[in-house]
């Protein structure tokens, strides 16, 4: 390995950037493979190994660079491989495709049609990434570089102009000017609350007490959200650059990065980034020769949702249990070790270099009046295209779900979008044209949250999902305040009862009362927002609750106690598959004889429903299937 020299001035940085670029041959083939969690789960490592062995076999190992990159968002169709030059995007690449890719695309510069993206509607192959519907409507300011950067190489980031914003800030701007710029840009906290970052910075800057701290919150515990992970894994330096700029503006000398232990790749890449930045003189003492010194440490979280709350997170860094404390004085004034501490989310920090590089006015030109810039969402659930999407604020939910998400899976009917995780709410179909920004979502009782966006279809039971969130929060509640500890438990009891078909009519009123109590009296945001899923589901989907209680009927046929499985004798082809897969041996039948489910033995696991190729197994709610008749012979249709 070449030893890297310390950069001692902005000129050094510029020179290094030019050196790196000069050394790069634009014609040199590069195979960029996504190795972040999603693609890895689909076998990206094996694909990479295959490329290595295949290139060696063809004696091309020295000529072709294999670059491990971060997430491009479209995890659904991974593992993803890009071939440069030519920008050929291949999806769902398997190790056995590799020899062909090497011989045709890398050596022969041809495109393999088979591996290109297939349009869901037209069935045509799409060559350019910009034409893929999933990407077409996105505005990828933060995630774009993930495809070009090896997160373990600082050179890749510097080559793209990385750390130039830091250099500009340190030598051309006063801390107050940086602060003004961020305030003017109207950058709002991406972690959920949407609090203006500039104002937060200012509070910490003006608060008495030294030293001051800056912190990165990557305790992304919200189930169904993973945008912070993608940034941390794919482009750690952009977060670090933002953090250093923030530290300069605030006057902090020490920083902490709080990452979930459950994100091992993110922890590793961030640690590497810190080391490289220090070696290059971009972090540590006397950064770039400016006289400004700043150190950063990583703190790994150990799996507690509530630790993402600001005061809890700071307690955790102090080595205490990550439980929230009352915040009569904000943490930005008295936080970590009772000192002024500025905590922002990963995505918030990542926006800072963009703002300083391209100006507050440019940033304001993106998004809506109240919410500038872009936001990364994790669009998941029952949509066709799932993954990370970065869109300008103000895009409508309809565009997100139908244009980018490609509509609902299996042609089913849309029911709701859930945003903001356990602290957010359900947004029904009539609000689909709502522009997505901080204020609009709050108006309909939900919130932006960190950006989880879960699409629900007619096959999802709202009561069940609400119960799911409540159950999650019961487990994650730290138990310090009574409303959250006991109130949530009571709510869960009631929801369990409703799902079990034992709900009472007065339950809905009790749910509303308890929700109100939670909102008014909880200690931290975990409790005060815990009622959001309950309140919004009661407002928009009250009829579903009523169906559960009055008719013992689960419209989505999800709640176990209210659903039975039944084999339709007209459709059953007596193929024995369900019979073999039934774990409780509840299905009887033989060749040429219609199969019958014994309802007493059935444990409602749904295995038969999944495996039946003739769609003969049906769900019935209320659970009252027609009487079973045994020994009926199969009538086979001619077609």
């Amino acid at each position, binding site marked *: 390995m070449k030893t890297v020299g310390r950069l001692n001035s902005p000129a050094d940085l510029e020179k290094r950037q030019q050196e790196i670029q000069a050394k790069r041959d634009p014609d040199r083939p590069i195979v960029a493979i996504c190795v972040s*969690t*999603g693609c*890895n*789960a*689909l076998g990206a490592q094996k694909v990479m190994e295959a490329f290595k062995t295949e290139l060696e076999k063809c004696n091309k190992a020295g000529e072709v660079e294999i670059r491990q990159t971060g997430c491009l968002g*479209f*995890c*659904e169709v*991974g593992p993803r491989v890009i071939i440069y030059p030519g920008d050929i995007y291949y999806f769902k690449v398997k190790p056995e495709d590799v020899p062909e890719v090497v011989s045709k695309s890398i050596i022969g510069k041809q495109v393999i049609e088979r591996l290109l993206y297939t349009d869901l509607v037209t069935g045509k192959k799409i060559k350019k990434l910009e034409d893929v519907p999933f990407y077409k409507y996105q505005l990828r300011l933060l995630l774009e570089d993930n495809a070009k950067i090896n997160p373990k190489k600082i050179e890749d980031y510097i080559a793209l102009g990385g750390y130039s914003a830091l250099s500009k800030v340190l030598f051309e701007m006063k801390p107050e000017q940086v602060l003004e710029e961020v305030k003017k840009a109207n950058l709002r906290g991406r972690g959920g609350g949407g609090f203006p970052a500039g104002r937060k910075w200012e509070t910490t800057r003006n608060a008495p007490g030294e030293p001051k701290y800056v912190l990165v919150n990557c305790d*992304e*515990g*919200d*189930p*169904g*959200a*993973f945008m912070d*992970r993608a940034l941390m894994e794919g482009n750690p330096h952009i977060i670090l650059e933002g953090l250093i700029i923030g530290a300069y503006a605030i006057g902090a000398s020490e920083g902490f990065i709080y990452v979930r*232990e*459950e*994100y091992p790749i993110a922890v590793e890449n961030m640690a590497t980034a810190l080391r490289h930045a220090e070696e290059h003189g971009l972090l540590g003492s006397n950064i770039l020769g400016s006289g400004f010194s700043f150190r950063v440490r990583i*703190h*790994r*979280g*150990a*799996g*507690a*949702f509530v630790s993402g709350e600001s005061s809890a997170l700071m307690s*955790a*860094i*102090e*080595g*205490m*249990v*990550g*439980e929230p404390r009352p915040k009569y004085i904000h943490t930005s004034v008295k936080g970590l070790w009772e000192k002024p501490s500025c905590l922002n989310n990963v995505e918030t920090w990542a926006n800072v270099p963009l703002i300083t590089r391209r100006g507050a006015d440019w940033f304001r030109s993106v998004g809506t009046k109240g919410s500038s810039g872009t936001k990364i969402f*994790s669009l*998941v*659930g*029952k949509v066709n295209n*799932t*993954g990370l999407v970065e869109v300008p604020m103000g895009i409508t939910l309809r565009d997100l779900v139908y244009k980018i998400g490609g509509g609902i899976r299996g042609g089913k009917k849309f029911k709701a979008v*859930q945003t903001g*995780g356990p602290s957010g709410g359900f947004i029904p179909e009539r609000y689909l044209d709502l522009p997505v920004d901080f204020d609009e979502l709050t108006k309909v009782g939900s919130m932006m949250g960190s950006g*989880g966006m*879960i699409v*629900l279809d007619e096959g*999802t039971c709202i009561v069940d*999902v609400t119960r*799911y*969130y409540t159950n*999650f929060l019961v487990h994650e509640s*730290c138990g310090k305040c009574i409303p959250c500890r006991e109130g949530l438990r009571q709510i869960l009891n009631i929801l369990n009862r409703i799902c079990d078909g034992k709900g009472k009519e007065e339950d809905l009123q009790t749910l509303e009362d308890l929700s109100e109590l939670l909102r008014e009296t909880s200690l931290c945001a975990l409790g005060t927002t815990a009622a959001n899923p309950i309140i919004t589901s009661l407002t928009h989907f009250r009829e579903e609750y009523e169906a559960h209680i009055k008719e013992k009927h689960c419209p989505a046929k999800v709640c176990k106690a209210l659903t039975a499985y039944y084999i339709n004798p007209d459709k059953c082809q007596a193929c024995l598959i369900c019979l073999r*897969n039934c*774990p409780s041996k509840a299905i009887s039948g033989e060749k040429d004889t219609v199969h019958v489910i014994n309802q007493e033995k059935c444990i409602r*696991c*749904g*295995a038969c429903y*999944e*495996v039946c190729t003739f769609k003969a197994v049906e769900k019935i709610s209320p659970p009252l299937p027609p009487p079973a008749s045994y020994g009926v012979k199969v009538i086979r249709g001619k077609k």
Partner: protein
Amino acid sequence: MKKKQDKQFFVGLRITDEQRSLLSKIQRNAGLSKTEILLKGLEVIGEYYSLGLDRPPLSLELKKLEEEAVHHAETLKHIRRREDALKEIIRELRDIDSIVDKYGGDASALIQILLDIQAKYRWVSKPAMIWISERLGVPMSRIYHTATFYKVLSLKPQGLHMIRVCLGTACHVRGGSKIMETVERILNVKEGETTTDGLFSVEGVNCLGCCALGPVMTIDGEYYGGLKSAAVEKILSNYMKSGEKA
């Protein structure tokens, strides 16, 4: 001819080859004559059946000796086991020492230290907690508070294979809880438990961060996405086989 006959007979009795070699050994080593051997034999038989002697029967004594020997062997095994356990603990404490040193003995690194121990041993043992308390000067109550608060930390030994079923929202709406039920049913354990053979631990996690592939489970970090409950048994059986080999 007569000489050979001698070898096959002892005071007129036909004897086997083994008995003959024993006989010659006694004659040679003990220096006893045939008659003396006969008389001694008589005595031993008498003693054995406790006839005409005050001593307890030899059979009983032999049995006692045997019991004692078994007992000692057991104790020795027990001591060895304790020795091994103590060695193990000492090794663990040394490891903990180096982990604590890595963080400069800083009490605010408590969570990081516990995480490192969890990663290495798959659980945090009581001696480990006592030792950390000693080294950091942090009361045991706070260590226990921390170790029980965080989900990642376990106070029980974990199984050889760690099964994590994603119960995040995206997986939930695609049937993650059914996958969990199937795993629980096949292994006959509940979420958060370890099978009695110590082969599997089952854990529900809130989000593995690959929602696009839901429902997902991981076994020892290997991902299984787009799962159907009917496929779970086959996947698990692969690990059961490999577990037996290990």
